[in-house]
């Protein structure tokens, strides 16, 4: 297990290097440079600025300087936000995005497992049909529509109660977080419900369920100990990639609910070609996602003994 983890971590490091390189190349493909945003500056000032940021060096040299700094954990200084270090931007705003993402994953996973199990129990009866209809809706409606509708709902709740019970936008308290994370997790919840349902239905016909039933175990025990535990496995497998989808998918929700997350800084940085912020956020996100997938895979090994043997 340890060897497996180490191997995965090493592959992860190489992946992060690949992400960094791809970002660097793509970023330098964009026409223009970060200094072009400012008002027209004289050639001399421009030269000084280029020197300050190291833009006067050849691109290959810039690449190695950047890699070296990255190894030391330093992403440099932002071009557009004066004297603000990229590390500070990430430290200030990533926790917001991460909290939102983690809450959304929590909603999605718990909701998906619960609804999925329910639909499997009530197969082809009213609860199943109703939930599966909602699931199809959840898969087909874009997240920004949910975000807008969620806000509308909050406005109506607040005006009905006559006071601002749940804030419609912004960030800070738990009540700020509920609606955005619910909206963000909705699509994934629908996906996981579908997955959970099919995996529950597949397991009902397994021999070990029949054996358990033949042994005379109580239906509750069969359901919780045998069916549910095994049915959750495929859900955990897709959770890794889904965490990735949710954390970056937070952009829209952050935009609609005016949440000061990292997504907004990334979009802004790309528009202004803020090299260091683009590199910093992308590499950081990439590393975070790679780590998440590794953690989920390793956890999977603990949950499912069959994986550990391989």
């Amino acid at each position: 297990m340890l060897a497996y983890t180490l191997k995965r971590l090493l592959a992860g490091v190489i992946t992060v290097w690949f992400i960094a390189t791809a970002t660097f190349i793509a970023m330098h493909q964009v026409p223009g440079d970060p200094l072009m945003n400012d008002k027209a500056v004289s050639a001399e000032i421009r030269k000084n600025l280029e020197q300050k940021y190291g833009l006067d060096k050849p691109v290959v040299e810039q690449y190695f300087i950047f890699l070296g700094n990255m190894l030391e954990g330093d992403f440099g200084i932002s071009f557009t936000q004066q004297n603000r270090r990229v590390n500070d931007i990430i430290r200030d705003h990533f926790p917001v995005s991460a909290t939102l993402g983690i809450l959304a994953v929590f909603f999605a996973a718990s909701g998906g497992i619960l609804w999925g199990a329910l639909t499997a129990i009530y197969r082809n009866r009213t609860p199943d049909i109703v939930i599966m209809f909602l699931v199809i809706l959840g898969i087909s409606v874009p997240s920004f529509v949910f975000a807008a509708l969620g806000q509308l709902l909050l406005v109506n709740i607040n005006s009905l109660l006559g006071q601002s019970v749940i804030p419609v936008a912004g960030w800070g308290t738990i009540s700020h977080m509920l609606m955005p994370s619910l909206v963000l997790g909705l699509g994934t919840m629908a996906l996981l419900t579908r997955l959970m349902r099919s995996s529950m239905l597949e397991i009902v016909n397994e021999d070990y369920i029949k054996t358990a039933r033949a042994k005379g175990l109580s239906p509750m025990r069969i359901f919780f100990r045998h069916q549910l535990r095994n049915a959750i496995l495929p859900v955990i497998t897709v959770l890794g990639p889904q965490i990735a989808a949710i954390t970056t998918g937070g952009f829209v929700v952050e935009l609609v609910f005016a949440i000061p997350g990292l997504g907004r800084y990334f979009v802004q940085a790309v528009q202004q070609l803020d090299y260091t912020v683009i590199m910093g956020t992308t590499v950081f996100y990439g590393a975070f996602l790679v780590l998440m997938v590794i953690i989920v895979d390793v956890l999977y090994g603990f949950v499912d003994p069959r994986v550990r043997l391989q």
Partner: protein
Amino acid sequence: MTDVTPTAEDFSPATSSISVEQISRPSLSYWQDAWIRLKKNTRAIISLYIVLSLAFFTLLGPIFWNVDPSLQDLNQISQAPSLPKTAVLVGQYQRWSGIVLEDFPAEPADYPDSVDAVTDLRPFELATTQQVRLVWNPVVGAAGYNIYRNQRLPENFNDLGLPLGSTYGGNEVSYEDRLSLESRPYYYAVVPTDGLDEYEVYTVIEVTPSMIITLAEASDRQLIKDANVAQTGTALKLEFHPFGTDYLGRDMLARLMQGARVSLFIGIVAPFIYVIMGIVYGGFAGYFGGTIDSLLMRFADFVVALPFLLFMILFKIAFGIGPGESGIFPMLIALVLLLWPATARLVRGQVLQIREQGYIEAARLLGAKPHYLILRHIIPNTMGVILVTLTFAVPAAIFTEAFLSFIGMGVAPPTPSWGSMCNEGVKTMLSHPHELIFPAVFISITVLAFNLLGDGLTEALDSRMRSRE
């Protein structure tokens, strides 16, 4: 021993009397069988019809609905969906000096504590969307009147609505309202005043202005050919916006059609290209195996690990969006570059599986060359899985396009796409919900149809299902 002399008859073919087992049903190919099973799936067939009508809407729609989607009409901003409207053609607006009674005092002799409400409040001439002219009978003791307009019947004195203006003088008994009138019921209220303060009595009438259009405006909007020939008083058909207009007065239906072209173009072409790329890449890796396979697949793993949305945005900008470009092609390239590995992995897995099948061995023993094997045996057998992937890839690509356009990183204005229309619509969600609802519904229905079709295809093409029937 008897001599047998063989005759020519002995060498003629014998007639066989063994009955061959009859095949009772006609033999079906894989695809025919899949089609029969798909037809049994009502949801999938309905989805197929939806997809076909979307194609019809996109490709032939502009022929039947020949309206310029980029034509701005600032007279008709954010109009709600409606039936066709007609308007009466009128000449230019004529000034109205109002009615001032000469036999009535402008200022009352004394100011009483209370006065009666005005009587006989009525529209003067026909009320039109150009102007509503009101007259009423004077009230003894009033030194002026305040005029209010409400969009619903006032409940009490404090609910008279928008204060339009005042007249100063008890004998000034008319008012002209020209404030952005629409063809809908208004409730006008007149309150007598003592010159400063109001007496708490009011009179209400309901007025519904009729739709009119001036000659100048009609010729501006090209509703009439020649302003000199046209007759005032004739009814004129106004521009028809069945889905309403957007915040710049552009026709929503025409924009939805053009937006469908963008969204569906990206949604169908991008998956098509990257699925083909994935087939070639994955097929190559899977067929040759060994070192080539592991190297190719390791590279695919790296691409999968790129944070998707960040790189979509980065690539889209990197592939350039110059002035006047719509940004559709950069988005297409970005989608293809980022999404091919998923298909490559899938095809590789399939090829690895099929490669070991008996019929491939048999074909190889019979001397089939690799390219023949790949083209004739391996690729056709992966087609089912690939078709299903393609069906599910379309909604994913449409979602991505909508998502990027929504955060303002997608197609550049003025090119509409369903996503960018949602982005514009969400800003006026409360006052003009139709601007968000229509594009959102189109996205949802399209994604829904492709998802259900994909589900149906998965079931129909799954060879395991065959034995169950």
